[in-house]
């Protein structure tokens, strides 16, 4: 059973912080996404974007963290931290892996890659969120949405 911890933040835009530790098991992704998005929908002014863009981007980030970062090792976990308010969302997803080079991912929309079954995760995150940053090691992604 996943349990999120929510606490207030002393920040002008990001009012709350939610933390969730997710064991490496893809079956848990749906529950983790539902928990996080239900909290975000209550506060963020654009609920529709949370229901679709954030859900898909978070699914991608968690799947990448579990399958490629932690390499399916069930003894490892994924750390999820969401800071949010009515006008902004910032979600960090961090795995215990060695990291990867996000700029080395081939463009999945090129004709030669179109029939590949994988390689669309990072592309979709970048399409669906306003800003995406990886740490230097490449094992943590920060996904942001802003509304004025």
């Amino acid at each position, binding site marked *: 059973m996943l349990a999120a911890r929510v606490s207030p933040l002393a920040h002008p835009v990001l009012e709350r912080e939610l933390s969730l530790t997710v064991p490496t098991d*893809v*079956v*848990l*992704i*749906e529950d983790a996404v539902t928990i996080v998005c239900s909290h975000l929908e209550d506060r963020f002014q654009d609920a529709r974007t949370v*229901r*679709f863009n954030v*859900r*898909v981007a978070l*699914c*991608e980030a968690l*799947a990448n963290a579990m*399958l490629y970062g932690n390499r399916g090792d069930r003894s490892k976990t994924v750390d999820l931290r969401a800071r949010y308010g009515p006008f902004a969302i910032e979600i960090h997803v961090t795995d215990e892996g060695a990291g990867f080079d996000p700029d080395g991912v081939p463009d*999945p*929309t090129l004709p030669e890659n*179109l*029939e*590949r*079954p*994988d*390689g*669309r*995760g990072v*592309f*979709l995150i970048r*399409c669906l969120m306003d800003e995406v940053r990886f740490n230097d090691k490449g094992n943590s992604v920060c996904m942001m949405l802003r509304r004025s």
Partner: protein
Amino acid sequence: MGFTVRRNGKDVVVVDVEGQLIVGNRQELKARILEALEAGDRKFLIDFTHTGYIDSSGLGVLVSLSKKIRDEGGELKLAGLNEDLRTLFELTKLDTLFAISDTAADALTQF
């Protein structure tokens, strides 16, 4: 949440995706369709009318099923994508790879 497999009068296997198609359940969809393909079915329609979202693993399984079905001389069509889901297909250019109809009824007339 899950998949409902039914068959219409034109020997088309119709799979309804209820909820979402993501990394946690994509293998079930793949298994259900490959089972029908091995049993001799060649016409497939996946109906997303009741689908909230699809992740890249879900898109990937559709790509892989499309290829397998095509290799066996069959065809796979998609229908019922809402505006957000259609955007996903457009962003990834997979709208150029699949035959996509607005509704399942429309798609069934195309077989």
